[in-house]
């Protein structure tokens, strides 16, 4: 693959990623409605499936966030997909994700004073808030950078 083809491929994937990340963040948040509607002590197989689906999606999204995607592309394309501005945008996303986690954790701490929150629920809510915020922020920064080109 020559340099022009690599650049065009990276550009195309970069645009696709910028469109997909905010959408994935919103879908990820929306998916939590079904989790919150679960009975408190869920033991049905379908409830285990829901929790497992959330866990798998979280791991996939975290891996996508950390690596920038393009997993099945050549090294050269992946390097371009993770160039300097992308790494800076990801770091900003991490920072926003961290503060979302802190804010959510403090909120849960306060709620727990009045109504007990299970450990699993607390972890679920904090991780969801952090991952969704990081994804949305990273995606929006990428979209903005691609605009007005």
């Amino acid at each position: 693959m020559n340099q022009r083809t690599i650049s065009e491929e990276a550009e195309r994937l970069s645009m696709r990623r910028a469109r997909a990340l905010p959408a994935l963040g919103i879908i990820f948040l929306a998916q939590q409605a079904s989790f919150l509607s679960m009975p408190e002590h869920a033991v049905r197989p379908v409830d285990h499936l829901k929790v497992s689906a959330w866990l798998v999606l979280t791991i996939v999204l975290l891996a996508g966030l950390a690596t920038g995607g393009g997993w099945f592309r050549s090294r050269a394309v992946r390097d371009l997909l993770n160039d300097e501005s992308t790494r800076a945008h990801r770091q900003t996303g991490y920072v926003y994700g961290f503060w979302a986690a802190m804010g959510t954790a403090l909120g849960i701490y306060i709620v727990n004073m009045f109504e007990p929150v299970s450990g699993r629920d607390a972890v679920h809510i904090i991780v969801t808030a952090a991952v969704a915020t990081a994804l949305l922020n990273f995606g929006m920064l990428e979209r903005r950078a691609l605009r007005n080109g």
Partner: protein
Amino acid sequence: MAEQLRNRIKERRAELEITQAGLAESVGVTRKTVNTVENGVFTPSTILALKLAEALDLTVEQLFWIEEHR
């Protein structure tokens, strides 16, 4: 006092008739990165600034400068 990094990448590209994509290819980044540096949205690393200056046949000081706002 606020400081902002300014550059003359766009003007120099026009002089040399190089597109953002062409410049991006020659320094090993995406067009998006060149676009954000050119528009002052993103501050490049020293390595990228040196590569951009070399690709545009200027020194870093000729290509970038700091503007101060009161």
